[in-house]
């Protein structure tokens, strides 16, 4: 046989394994030398990378631009928090939240895909869905209404609560690695190969025997399940859930913008995007926030987004990969 895989080769599989192992080892050791503030930044980097990777399955690989992924985070968080009030540990509530998010993801996906909503129309459907969730959560007193839910601090690890921020660091890291592992698995199987083709031309896929509706739905289910898991982390790291924060458009934007900047539909794009944007967002947020310019970090996002669309339309990671492989040849 000629060259190995269908994709252009970049580094042998063993090389990649070593690089990944090294990166994970560094991230595992890092809290030993990081300041408390740096640890909280890394928690956000991992957590947003995790949500971005979850989005990447349906938004990047399958090319279905969900702009309401915050809804799944909110549903997952609310489910775990409400179950916690009734004595169920968030370690279980987390999966209940993920499952409920997956069910709703399947329903939204079915409505959108069955009736052929594409491009902007699917974007609008998902935004509307998240907004409906936000308005419902704000107005139903049983789930805390506009005030939201507050979680009493116990500091008990069995209740997903930790005195030490480094515990959250490791959980967020584990979530990011979980989503990336799932995506890597999907990427090399039939499912993932189909998704990349569905993104390019659904009609051609149908003609070649691909059940487009089924695979788009599966992608949506995997994606919303993962995002739903993230809700529990959000709730129990912040000890509170506000409808505007977890269902709102700003969180959806945070989720979408990372893979787009880093490289949607690539395995490492969402992670790279989060490593670029999260520190930038945090620094500019606190810098501008001090001078009373709240929300100014969004201007930084906007400028970066325009720059990426203009100069690196595939995202930063594919560009980086090209640079590296060119150097290898030289």
């Amino acid at each position, binding site marked *: *046989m*000629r*060259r190995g*895989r*269908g*994709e*252009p080769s970049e580094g042998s599989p063993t090389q990649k394994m070593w690089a990944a192992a090294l990166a994970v080892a560094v991230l595992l050791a890092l809290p030993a030398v990081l300041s408390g503030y740096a640890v909280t930044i890394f928690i956000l980097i991992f957590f947003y990378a995790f949500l971005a990777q979850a989005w990447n399955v349906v938004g990047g690989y399958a090319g279905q631009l969900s702009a309401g992924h915050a809804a799944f985070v909110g549903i997952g968080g609310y489910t775990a928090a409400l179950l916690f009030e009734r004595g169920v540990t968030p370690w279980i509530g987390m999966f209940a939240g993920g499952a409920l998010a997956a069910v709703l993801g399947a329903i939204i996906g079915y409505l959108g895909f069955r009736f052929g909503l594409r491009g902007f129309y699917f974007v609008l459907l998902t935004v509307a869905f998240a907004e409906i969730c936000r308005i419902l959560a704000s107005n139903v007193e049983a789930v805390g209404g506009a005030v939201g839910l507050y979680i009493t601090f116990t500091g008990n690890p069995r209740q997903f609560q930790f005195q030490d921020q480094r515990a959250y660091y490791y959980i967020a890291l584990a979530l990011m690695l979980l989503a990336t592992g799932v995506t890597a698995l999907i990427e*090399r*199987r*039939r499912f993932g*190969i*189909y998704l*990349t*083709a569905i993104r*390019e*031309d659904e*009609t*051609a*896929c*149908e*003609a*070649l*025997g*691909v*059940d*487009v509706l089924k695979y788009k739905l599966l992608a949506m289910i995997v994606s919303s399940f993962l995002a739903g898991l993230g809700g529990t982390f959000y709730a129990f790291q912040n000890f509170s859930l506000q409808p505007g924060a977890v269902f709102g458009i700003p969180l959806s934007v945070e989720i979408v913008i990372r893979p787009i900047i880093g490289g949607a539909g690539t395995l490492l794009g969402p992670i790279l995007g989060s490593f670029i944007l999260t520190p930038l967002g945090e620094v500019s947020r606190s810098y501008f926030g001090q001078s009373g310019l709240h929300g100014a970090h969004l201007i930084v996002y906007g400028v970066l987004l325009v720059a990426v669309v203009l100069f690196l339309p595939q995202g930063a990671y594919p560009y980086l990969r090209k640079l590296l492989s060119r150097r290898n040849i030289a």
Partner: protein
Amino acid sequence: MTEPATSSNRPPTFRREQALLLEVHNLSKRFGGLQAVKDLTFTVGEGEIVALIGPNGAGKTTAFALISGFLAPDSGTVRFAGRDLRGLKPHEINALGLARTFQIMRPFPRLTVVRNVMIATLGRHRDTREAERRARAVLDEIGLGAKAELPAGVLTLAERKRLELARALGTEPRLLLLDEVMSGLTDAETERIVELVRALNRRGIAILLIEHVMRAVMSLAQRIVVLNYGERIAEGRPEAVANDPRVIEAYLGDEEVTRAPA
């Protein structure tokens, strides 16, 4: 233009001895005021090569879309290998062994050529290695083996036509619907595709082709069905169809018919 209604309902009288693979019966489709396909009836036998010809706008591509499940007919039936295709989705029809190409080619431009064909082979071979092996075999047969690692978007027109064919072939069909796979090609390229189609047919794949390149149609087709304004106006062996006055009239118009060369 007023007469052909009577002759178009004449049942096909050719090759009755062959087992029927595709049976199209009284198929009709209307788009608003346009009757795109009207009471179309024809068959394709097991292992046969049939050409569907007619002037631009005669309803050929619409007929393909109706057969392959991309459009639902207003009335009429399509049976494939004895099975009624009513209500089946295109991917289900493909899984039964009926593959089509598109007149306006639809490669996945950012995927490599071999990945393009893998989308087809994965349907019957879930294992990605096996699917890739089969995709490469198809590409070699089609003459695109050397381009396997290129993104499909960079292929030339002729290569894209062949990729379209390779992908349809990758689904391992019993019947291949080819929509103008030779138009826009040079004579040499056309000749290669003709040879290819003949080779596929020898392997037992039945072919239904839409084609404007008459030389290719005449040399390939065992039977020709002629459409005009959505209706079948003639059917028969290539020589008979070529000399049929109704066909000449459809192609050249009323005034020309007396002076038209045979």
